[in-house]
């Protein structure tokens, strides 16, 4: 499961996409809209994607994970449009037979997503807005 969606992401659905009796570890990451950035109050975020590139890029992350961590499975859903505070902008589920690989693969998926997938974020404050780029840290 690799997709973009408007409206709240159902975490349990993404989690179920990686269920497998061979898996000893499941890790579900949620990137959530925070109520502040650099001390400034954030009302909500707005995400925009280039779907024709973003979905293949998400699928490519899943492919890389399957190659680097044999037996691992990944599912990623990213929200587009308005994402209010405390709601998830992205849900990444990873299942692996063993636990260390699960943490490695989940983190890999998140960093690859931030670096490679054509999605953009606008922070909307009480008194303005700004497009915010990911840093490489």
């Amino acid at each position: 499961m690799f997709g973009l969606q408007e409206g709240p992401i159902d975490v349990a659905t993404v989690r179920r996409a990686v269920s497998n009796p061979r898996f000893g570890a499941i890790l579900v990451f949620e990137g959530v809209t925070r109520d502040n950035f650099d001390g400034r109050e954030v009302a909500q975020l707005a995400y925009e994607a280039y779907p024709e590139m973003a979905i293949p890029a998400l699928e490519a992350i899943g492919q890389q994970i399957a190659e680097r961590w044999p037996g691992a499975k990944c599912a990623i859903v990213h929200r587009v449009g308005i994402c209010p505070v405390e709601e998830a902008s992205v849900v990444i589920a990873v299942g692996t037979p063993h636990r260390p690989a699960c943490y490695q693969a989940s983190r890999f998926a998140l960093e690859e997503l931030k670096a490679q997938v054509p999605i953009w974020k606008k922070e909307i404050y009480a008194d303005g807005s700004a497009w915010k780029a990911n840093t490489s840290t």
Partner: protein
Amino acid sequence: MITVTVRYFAALRERRGLETELMQTSETTTIGRLYAQIFPPGPDGALPVAYAQNHVRVPGATPLADGDEVAFLPPLGGG
């Protein structure tokens, strides 16, 4: 002359006031040159972008072909 479809996202979409447009350009134009034509560098310089031709990232020196879908990708913010 060739015709390409240009897609705009995020800050570039807002600056251009458009999501997409058809654009005519010369056969010798590269994707980087097209970007500079549409968004001439202002006092703050140009927004650094990546280039995509038919949904594949390409270098700025890549020549364009008739019917291409072209996109300029501002710094990413997913996650």
